[in-house]
C-alpha cells in the first residue's frame, strides 16, 4: 500500500467537510494555453509539464519514454483500442520535444481516440502515467490544494461542520459540529437540516454544491436557516474562521467534557495520549497537554502511534524533534540530495519515561517518529512491528497547470544507532541493545505482545481508534488492549526502578 493511497483514504471523511472531489482536474483551460490548441498539442503540453516535474523530483524516476508509454497505453485503453502494434518501439525512438508533440498528435488522430474529449484524454494519459509511477502519484487541483494545505496546517478555514444528506427530506444536514469552530459559536447543532444558505433554497442541493457555497475567505459570513423543518427554523449568521481539529486525544473525557483526561485510571501517574493525526499543530498541542499533565501528577507518558500513518514529513520531523533531547532524527535521500534532520535539546516530557505504542498499521509519519525516538533511545517502543513505509511523498507545484503533483521524492532513512550521541541515552532497558529494524526498516518493538495477542489485536482493530485501559474495553473483556497493558506494565516497572534509584 502506498502512502498516497493511505493518505487519500484517511482524509476521506475530513474532505467531506469542504472539498469538492476533482472529477476532472484537467478540464480547466490552463493559463497560457493557446485557444485553438489541438487535442494532441494540449495533451503533449500537459504531459511534458508533469513528466518534467517527475524527472526533476522523483526519487527514482522512470525514463521519459517509459512515462509516455504508460500514458499512451492508458489513452488507448480508455478509447477502447485493443491493440496498437509498435507503440513501445515508436516511443523508444522519440527524443526531441517536438518528437513527443508529433507523437501526441498522431495518438489523438487515431479513430477511436478522436471520439473522446480532449480533456478526458489528458486525464486518462496522466492517470495512466501516475499509476505506473513507482510509489504512485496524484494530481491535485489548486482549489483542493488550498484546502489540503489548510488541513495539514490544522488551520482549515470554514464553518466547522461535517455534512450529510437527508434523503427523505432532500436537505443537507449537519452531521457533526466541530468543537470550538464557527458553527458551534453560531449555535448550529448536530442533526440540523440546512434549509437555506444565504438567499438560496437548499432543498435538493447536493453535498458538493453545499460545500461550494459554504466555503469562503476567513472573516466572511454566511447566513444559514437551519432547523427540523421550514416551519420550525432559526437563522444563524456564521463567520467563517479557523476550524481546528484535535490531534491528540486522551483516555476519556473529563467530567465537564471540556477536556481530555489522559490518566490510565484515576490513581495512576501514567498517562496515555492517542495521536489522532500528525499535522501542523501536533507539537503545539503536545506542549499544552504536557503542562496539564505536570499539574495533574503525571510521571510517565504513553504516546499511542498505532494506526498513525498519515502526515507530512515536515510535521513528523517537528514531532520527533519535540520528543528528542538532541540527536539525529533521520535523513531523507532524494534523487540528488540528502537532507539531514537533527533535533535540538528542547523537548517535551523531559525526565519522564516515555513509551511509544506501534502496531502493524503504524507507518509513514508515525513510523518515522517512532524510529527516531527508538534509535535515539529517547523512549521505549511497545507493540507490534510497524508497517515499514519509508517512502516520502512531496508536493510539487506544476507551473502552467494550476495544479500540484504529489509524488515519491525520497526515502526516509533511520538514524544510525551507532552514531547516537553519548548522554542522550535514557529510559532504555539497562544494558539492552535496541532490537534491529525489520528488513524494510520497520520499527521492531523493544517489548512485543505475544502471537496470540496479535491475533486479538487484528480482530479488534476497529475498536482501537482510542486506547482503553484494563477493564474498560468497549466489549468489556479483560486484557482487551494487550499493547497498552504491556506498556503500562513496562512503565510501572520503570517507575519502581526510578523510585528505588531515588530519581
Amino acid at each position, binding site marked *: 500500500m502506498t502512502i498516497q493511497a493511505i493518505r487519500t483514504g484517511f482524509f476521506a471523511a475530513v474532505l467531506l467537510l469542504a472539498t469538492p472531489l476533482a472529477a476532472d482536474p484537467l478540464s480547466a483551460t490552463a493559463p497560457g494555453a493557446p485557444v485553438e490548441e489541438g487535442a494532441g498539442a494540449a495533451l503533449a503540453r500537459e504531459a511534458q509539464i508533469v513528466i518534467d516535474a517527475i524527472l526533476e523530483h522523483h526519487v527514482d524516476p522512470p525514463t521519459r519514454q517509459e512515462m509516455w508509454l504508460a500514458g499512451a497505453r492508458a489513452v488507448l485503453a480508455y478509447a477502447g483500442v485493443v491493440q496498437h502494434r509498435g507503440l513501445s518501439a515508436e516511443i523508444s525512438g522519440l527524443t526531441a520535444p517536438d518528437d513527443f508533440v508529433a507523437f501526441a498528435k498522431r495518438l489523438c488522430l487515431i479513430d477511436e481516440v478522436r471520439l473522446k474529449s480532449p480533456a478526458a484524454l489528458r486525464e486518462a494519459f496522466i492517470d495512466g502515467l501516475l499509476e505506473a509511477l513507482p510509489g504512485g502519484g496524484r494530481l491535485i487541483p489548486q482549489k483542493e490544494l488550498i484546502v489540503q494545505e489548510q488541513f*495539514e*496546517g*490544522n*488551520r482549515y478555514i470554514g464553518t466547522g461542520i461535517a455534512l450529510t444528506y437527508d434523503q427523505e427530506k432532500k436537505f443537507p444536514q449537519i452531521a457533526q459540529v466541530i468543537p470550538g469552530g464557527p458553527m458551534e459559536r453560531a449555535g448550529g447543532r448536530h442533526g440540523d437540516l440546512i434549509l437555506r444558505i444565504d438567499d438560496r433554497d437548499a432543498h435538493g442541493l447536493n453535498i458538493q454544491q453545499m460545500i461550494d457555497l459554504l466555503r469562503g475567505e476567513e472573516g466572511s459570513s454566511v447566513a444559514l436557516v437551519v432547523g427540523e423543518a421550514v416551519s420550525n427554523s432559526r437563522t444563524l449568521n456564521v463567520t467563517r474562521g479557523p476550524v481546528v481539529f484535535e490531534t491528540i486525544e486522551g483516555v476519556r473525557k473529563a467530567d465537564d467534557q471540556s477536556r481530555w483526561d489522559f490518566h490510565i485510571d484515576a490513581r495512576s501517574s501514567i498517562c496515555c495520549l492517542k495521536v489522532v493525526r500528525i499535522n*501542523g*499543530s501536533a*507539537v*503545539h498541542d503536545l*506542549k499544552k497537554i504536557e*503542562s496539564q499533565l*505536570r*499539574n495533574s501528577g503525571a510521571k510517565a507518558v504513553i504516546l499511542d502511534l498505532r494506526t498513525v500513518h498519515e502526515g507530512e514529513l*515536515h510535521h513528523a*520531523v*517537528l514531532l520527533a*524533534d519535540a520528543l528528542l*533531547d538532541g540527536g539525529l*532524527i533521520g535523513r531523507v535521500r532524494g534523487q*540528488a*540530495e*540528502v*537532507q*539531514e*534532520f*537533527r*533535533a*535540538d*535539546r*528542547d523537548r517535551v516530557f*523531559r*525526565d519522564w519515561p516515555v513509551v511509544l505504542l506501534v502496531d502493524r498499521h503504524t507507518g509513514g509519519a508515525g513510523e518515522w517518529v517512532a524510529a527516531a525516538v527508538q534509535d535515539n533511545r529517547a523512549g521505549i517502543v511497545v507493540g507490534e512491528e510497524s508497517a515499514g513505509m519509508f517512502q516520502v511523498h512531496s508536493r510539487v507545484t506544476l507551473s502552467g497547470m494550476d495544479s500540484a503533483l504529489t509524488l515519491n521524492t525520497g526515502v526516509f532513512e533511520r538514524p544510525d544507532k551507532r552514531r547516537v550521541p553519548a*548522554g542522550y541515552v535514557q529510559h532504555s532497558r539497562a544494558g539492552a541493545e535496541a532490537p534491529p529494524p525489520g528488513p524494510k526498516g520497520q520499527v521492531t518493538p523493544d517489548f512485543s505482545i505475544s502471537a496470540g495477542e496479535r491475533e486479538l489485536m487484528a480482530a479488534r482493530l476497529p475498536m482501537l481508534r482510542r486506547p482503553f485501559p484494563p477493564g474498560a474495553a468497549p466489549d468489556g473483556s479483560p486484557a482487551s488492549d494487550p499493547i497498552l497493558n504491556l506498556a503500562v506494565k513496562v512503565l510501572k516497572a520503570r517507575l519502581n526502578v526510578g523510585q528505588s534509584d531515588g530519581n
Partner: protein
Amino acid sequence: MWGSLMATDAIAILRQPNTRCGIGARVVVALLLAAIASRPGSAADDPESPFASARLRGPVALVLADAGKTLLTANRRAGTISIVDTTAGRVVAEVPVGKNLSALAAVPGGRLLLATDEAAHELLLIDRNENSLKTVARWPVAQYPVSVRVSPDGERCYVASLWSRRLSIVCLESGAENTQPAELSLVKSVSLPFAPRQQLLVENGKRLLVADSFAGKLAVVDTASGEIEAIRQLPAHNIRGLALNPDGSRLLVSHQILNALARTTPDDVHWGMLMGNVVRSLKLAYVLDKEADILRGSLAHPVGEAGNAAADPATIALTAGGEIAVAMSGVGEIGFFPDDDSTFRRVAVGGRPTELVVSADGSRVFVADELRDTISFVDVKEARRTAEISLGPQPELSLADRGERFFYDGHLSHDGWMSCHSCHTDGHSNGLLNDNLGDGGFGAPKRVLSLLGVGRTGPWAWNGEVAELDAQIKKSIETTMRGKKPKDDQVAALAAFLRTLTSAPPLNPKSESDQAAITRGREIFAERQCGRCHTPPEYTSEATYDVGLKDQFNYSKFNPPSLRGVSQRDALFHDNRAANLEEVFTRFTHQVDGELPEKDLTDLVAFLRSL
C-alpha cells in the same frame, strides 16, 4: 545649564593589593574625584528643568531606593538618571551622568550607585543624596559595558562588557558612610567565550552567572577566584532575564527558541514551531555542576500562546505572591504566571517594556518602557496598570527613531511571535540557523545574518538576489515573520534605522593587538587575493561566488558576507559549519590555494579579527 558637568580627572596610581578584595597582585586605580556639579531636580512643570526638555531618554535599568519610595532609571539615549517619586507618581529629578547608560545598580547599605556607560566604556560611581546625584568616579572598564551587579556585601561589582567579551571584577572601596571619595580597583578581567549581557549572583554571591547576549551560553564564575567554572549551553537565544525562584533552588531564564527545523510558513509561525518565547526554569544545582545535564529537571514555561503570542521576553521578577512577572518587550505587555502555568495574566503597558522591578511591598510592578520613555505602575493583584509616568517629553521622532520602534515591535509579525530583534538581536544576529525563503525555498536553513553595517553591504540575502534594502525588509516581514504587508513608511523607517547600525567592533581592536601580525595578515589577505570577493572597505562585494560550499539542495553560489566584525561571529559559512576563523582555512580550506603555513594562518586570522 549642565555645561558645568566635567569629566572626572582620573589619576592611575599603582598600589599594593588591598586587603578588602584581595586576590593576588593587581593594578589598582585610585581615582581622584572631582566634585561634579549636581543639583536637585526641579519640578516637571519647570521649563528650565532638564526633564522638561524634549529628548529621547530610553530607560533601560531600574533601581528602587528609599524602601521603595524612590525609583531610579538609567536612560540609555540621554545618558541621564531620572528620579521618580513612586508615592507621588512623578519625576522629581533628572541628572546627566554619561553618554549612553546601559545599567544601574545600588551598592548595598549606602547611597552609592553604580552605572555603566556603554559609549564611554566607563563604570560610574554615583553618590545620591535624595534628589541630587554626584558622579564621584569614572573608571574605564572593558569596552561596551552593558550590565553591572554588586555583591551582597557591597565590596565588589561585576561588569559585563558586550563586544569585548569580558567580565570585569571590580573592588569597591568606599569611604566612611559611603560619602567619601571612593576607589575602584580591578580584581580581575575575565575573558568570556561569548558576548555577555545579563548577570545574576547566586549562592549568596559565591557564584556569578553571566549570560550570552545573542545565543544560549551561560558562564558560571566563581566570584572568589574569578575563574570560569563552566560554560553551559542552553537551547536558547536572546537571553534577557535571569532570576531565582523564592527558595533559590531554581534559575529562571527568559529567552527565545529558534527551531532550525521549522520553516517560516504561516502554519509554523502560527503554532509557535518557529519561534518560542519562554521562561525556562532550571535546577540551579544542575546549572552550577558542570558534570550535570543542565536541562535535567527543567521546565519551559510558555510566554504567550498561539493566536496571542508574546515576542521577546525580557526581565523577570518574582511578585510577593510567588508569581513570575515577565516583561514581554515585543508586544508591549507584562505577564504574570504561577510556577504551574495554571493562569497567565497579561497587562498592556505599550511600547517596549524591557525592565521591571517589584515594589518593596510586592503589590506593584514598575515597568520601564525603553522606547516611549515612560514608567508604568502595575497593580499585581488586579493585573492592571494604575499609572504611567512620563520621564519627560520626546522630540519629534526622526525616521530612524521610528524605524527603531518597528525593529523591536513584535506586532509586525503574525500574532506577535517575533520582532526583527528576535533573530537579529539588537541588530546583530543570534547566530542560529533559520529555514526561510531567503534562498527561494525551504529545506536548507541558513545562518541569520548580522544587520550591523547592513546599509553598506548590499545586495542582501545569502544568494544576493535582493538588490534593495527596502525589498529585503518587506520580504522578511511578509515571508519570514508572516506579518501583514508593511506600509511604505514603515519600511522606509526600518531602512533608515538599519542604516544607522555600524558594524560590530572587532574583538581584538588594533590598539590591543599584535600590530606586526595584523600587518602581515593584511599582506597575506592581499597576496591570496581574498579581496576579489571580500573587497575593502566593507570586505564584501555584490556578486555571488561558488566556493565549493553547498547547501542541502546543492546550491553553491553565495554572496560573501562582509568581514567587518567577523570576529564577533561564533560560527561561519551559510550553515555554521565552521566553528571559528581558523577552521575556515584549515578544515574547509576556504579559497586556500596550496599550503597555508601556520604562521600565515595565525597572522591572517589576527588581521581578520582586527576588522
